Every structure is written in C-alpha cells, then in structure tokens.
C-alpha cells in the first residue's frame, strides 16, 4: 500500500517591493471557509510592514509614472492574460471561502483589467482640456498621476472589488499600497503572484493582509501617501480616517457601494479621481 501523500499547501505571505515577505511581527490570522473551518492562515501585517510597503511604493513611483502610457496599458493587459491562465485557481480559492458563482467573479475581474488597460493612453483626452482664456495664452489642462495611493479594498467581492479599485489607480502611473479584504484575503495574495510575474515592476503594487482597524489609521496618517481609496473602510471608521488623512491633504475617495458586476462599476473617472490636473499657460505671440 502506498502511503497517503501529504498536500503541499501554500503559505500566504505579504507582497512588498516585488518580494513575498512574512509580516515582520511574525503574526498570522486564520481564514475560514464557508463552514467555519480553518482554510489557511494569512499574514497579519503590522504598521512596520505598512511603512516598508509605502517605502517600496515610493521607490517604484518614478519608474512607473515615467513609463509610457501605452507600456503601462500593455502591462495591465498582460496581467489579464496571466489571470486567465490561473482562472481555475482563483475560482477554487473563492469557492473555498464561500463565494457563490466564483467563475463569474473571476471572468469579470479579468475583463476589468482589460477594460482599464485600454484607458492608459486615452484618459488624458477625455479629462484634459484646452481652455479658452481671455489673454494671449495657449492654455491647456492635463492629468498627472498623484503619487503613492493607499487602497483599502472592499470586503466583498474580494477579488473583483480589489481589481475594480486597483486597476484605475495604477493605470495612470500611481503606485499602490493595498490593504486586502480582511475576511477574504487569499485571492489578493494570489493576485499578487500574478502581478509579480506579469512585468509589473516590483513595488508598484504592494499587498498587505491583516486587520483593517490596525492598518488603516497608519495608512491614512502616513505623510508620504498622497491619496487613499476608502471604499473598503467600515462605515464607523470613515470619519476618523478622513480627519487623519486631512493632515497632509490626502485625496480621499470613497466609492459608495456599487454593484461591482455592473457597467457602472467601471469608469474613466475612477482613473482621473487619482490624478492631479495640471494647467499650463503658454504665452503666444499676437
């Protein structure tokens, strides 16, 4: 009789600066399946992991924001390609955590990457303007990426919600520090594995798993974070987080509670929300 083989199971770690470290605190927390059984343990990031993630995001910012728009679009499209190859794994992971109709969520997430990839070199034409001004100036306004953006991912849908908020942030040249869904963090780490192998430079996306209550105040207070997406912040925490974020005038964006499966959940304005408008007054001869 052959001995029964033991499964080799994945250790879910963080994703910081292109590497997969454990939390410096050494902590983890249990993730349950739909029936209350422990499925796996996810790393429970500390504020110091967050500090390192912001440092990595800042270091990656120059290269990513200066890459050409079409190059960024190609890279996002490649993320979709590689996700497609792992579709079964994502679906299996979502199903394991009690998500119903997981295939539908995975395909929607892949399509969302493709949709936003296309906007990389088009958003400027939609929100940029040439302004008629009363003077001898050629006056135009165009959007530029904001910088390092913190993203508190929605709890559900864990994968589609994350992709729907992440893609518009990074397509324009921002870098991101993601606090994943607290209850369903595993797809975020598998997504990180896809990002790590799809030409997204290390540090452009950093994924932390852990307790939102512990991480979000430090993210909101960090003086080197330029904007924060509060979509996944629990309602009762929002006022405090917004007040903290005001110290360095962070852009705070909160997308109500949309149906992530609908057309309305994707919009070029989700891209421009994390961009700064620059206006140039160029003198013209008479």
């Amino acid at each position, binding site marked *: 009789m052959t001995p029964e083989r033991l499964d080799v199971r994945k250790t879910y770690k963080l994703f910081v600066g292109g590497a997969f470290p454990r939390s410096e605190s050494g902590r983890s927390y249990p993730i349950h399946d739909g029936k209350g059984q422990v499925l796996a343990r996810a790393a429970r990031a500390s504020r110091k992991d967050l*500090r390192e993630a*912001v440092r990595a995001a*800042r270091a990656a910012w120059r290269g990513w924001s200066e890459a050409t728009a079409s190059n960024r679009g190609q890279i996002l499209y490649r993320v979709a390609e590689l996700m497609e190859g792992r579709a079964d794994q994502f679906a299996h992971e979502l199903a394991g955590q009690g998500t119903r109709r997981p295939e539908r969520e995975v395909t929607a997430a892949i399509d969302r990457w493709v949709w936003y990839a296309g906007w990389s070199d088009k958003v400027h034409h939609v929100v940029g303007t040439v302004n008629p001004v009363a003077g001898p100036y050629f006056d135009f306004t165009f959007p530029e990426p904001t910088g390092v953006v913190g993203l508190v991912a929605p709890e559900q849908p864990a994968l589609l919600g994350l992709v729907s908020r992440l893609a518009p942030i990074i397509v324009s040249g921002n870098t991101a520090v993601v606090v994943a869904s607290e209850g369903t963090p595993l797809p975020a780490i598998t997504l990180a594995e896809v990002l790590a192998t799809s030409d997204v430079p290390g540090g452009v996306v950093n994924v932390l798993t852990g307790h939102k209550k512990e991480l979000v105040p*430090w993210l909101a*207070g*960090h*003086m*080197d*974070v330029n904007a924060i997406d509060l979509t996944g912040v629990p309602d009762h925490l929002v006022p405090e987080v917004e007040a903290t974020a005001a*110290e*360095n005038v962070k852009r705070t964006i909160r997308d109500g509670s949309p149906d992530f499966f609908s057309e309305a959940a994707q919009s070029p304005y989700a891209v421009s929300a994390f961009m700064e408008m620059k206006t140039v007054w160029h003198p013209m001869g008479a």
Partner: protein
Amino acid sequence: MATSSTEIERSGAVPPGALGFTATQAAGLVARTAAVDAVGLEERAASLAKRSIKREAKLWALDLAIRCMDLTTLEGADTAGKVVAVCAKAVRPDPTDPSIPSVGAVCIYPLLVPVAAGQLKGTTVRVASVAGGFPAGLAPLEERLGEIREAVRSGADEVDIVLNRSAFLSGRYRQAFEEIAASREACGDAHLKTILEVGELGSYDQVRRASVLAMAAGSDFIKTSTGKLSTGATLPAALCMMEAARDFHHETGRRVGVKVAGGIRQSKQAIQYLVLLYETLGPDWMGPDLFRIGASTLLNDVLMQIAKERTGRYQGPDYFTVD
C-alpha cells in the same frame, strides 16, 4: 607583524610624533596588535545592532546623533551657495523647531572653508575640512601638507586626512606613520582625523593595525571611510576601531575619538553605531568631542524620525528640506 617592527625599527632615529611616540615605539604598539577574531567581531556587531531603542531612549539617541554629526558635502559641484545652505541647516536643522540642537561640524573641501568659517562664526558648529589629497592621499607629501596648512589658515577647526593606503598595504608602515605625524604637526591647534578607508584595507587585522598606527601618530580621531567608495562604514569595522581605541586608551591613557562615515543614511544605522560606542567605549565617548557621524543625508531622516516619534505619523520627504 615581524615586518612591521623591523621596518620601523630599521629607520633608527626618526623624529618623534607629536605625542612623543617615536616610530620605534609605534612599531611596538603595531607589533603587539593581536589578530582580530573576525567571526566573533561580526557576531558581536550583529547582536548589538539588534538592540531595540524606542521612544524616550530613541529621542535621546537621535538628539545625540545630531550633536555628533558632521554634516558633509563633498562633491565636485559644491558651490559657495550650497555651503551657505548646508551651514544654515547645520546651525538650525529644523527651522520650525528650536529644540533640535545644532550639528557638531560641517565637513567640506578646503577651498570652501572660508565660506563656512564666515557662516559659522559665533555658533557652536565647527568647520571641518578634508585635506591631504582626499580621497586617495597619493599626492606628493609637500602638497598634502600645504593643503592642510591652507585649510587651517582659512579657518578649519578640524582636518580630515586619509591614511596613505598605498604605503600601508605594501608594508611601509614607517612612511605611513611619518606622514600622519607630519600632518599632525601641520594641523597646529586644529583636530586631526585620519581616514583609514576600511573598504580598501581588506581584513579586520589590517583595520586594527591601521587604527593603532594612526592613533600612535597623533590623530585625534580615527575615521572609517571617505564616503567615496561603495563600501563605507560597516558595523564590524567600526567596532574593530572602537576596540582599538579602547585598548589604546588603556595602554597610553590617551582618548582618541572615532568617526563613522560612508553610507549612513538612516536613523536606525546611526543608533546602531551609538549602541556599539556605548558598549565598547562607554559614556565618556558619547559626545561630539570623541564621536562623530559623517553624513550628508542622514540628518533628514533623523528629523523625520523625531517628527514621527512626536506626532505618531510616518513622515514623508515633502515636509522636510531634503537636499
């Protein structure tokens, strides 16, 4: 080791160093340097570096790090304007916060010493100048000594010279010794810091030997690196030099300072060196008279860390004068 003593002793009646050490006596000291246990040294440095310094203790250490700092700008592109800016920052590191102390000194090239001396007149910040053919130290001796005299004449309180590694590494210890002794004399009242450039010495034995040589030749400070190599100060090399300074004090009663420089950009590193210093040389060395950190960008990080301790927020470079 035999080479070193015979080499120096053969020279016979050499002029004594500024402290009364003859080359022969120095040779005795160099010859007595025991081999360094590299594994033990690195392990001890690594274990001390892990010590956790938090909150009040961290604020105290950061304050000390600023007071012991040689704020440095050593670029070919340095201008009078840049030096003026550096001096202003040296005197008042955070313009909005008078409780932050001034740094120990400003470290610059000799030609810019008059600018710094003018800016720092009446303050506690001292003027340090590199000289003596920095960073290679391979100019003709007379030229090097002339550069030192010129820097002191223009107002330098401290002079950072480099060890002649070419002579030292080829075993010409007597020449290396005499050159430092001559530099000491050229300094007059100014303090002399001798840079060993540990990244080029090759082994801890050599670091230890070079430390003893430089101290015996009359250096007021021994300094790890020029900052011009990719390998700057390292914790084990600094620990090795501190141990040499401790033993030198034990043997001769003279206190020689230690300056770490090269690649120290973060507060955490500065605190690690302070821990090494405390554990090796004790509280007597914990001040700008006997310990210095040479750095150009470290000050920004220290200011950010202080702000982080006070406000409870991680800081970003947008809110500090990053140069």
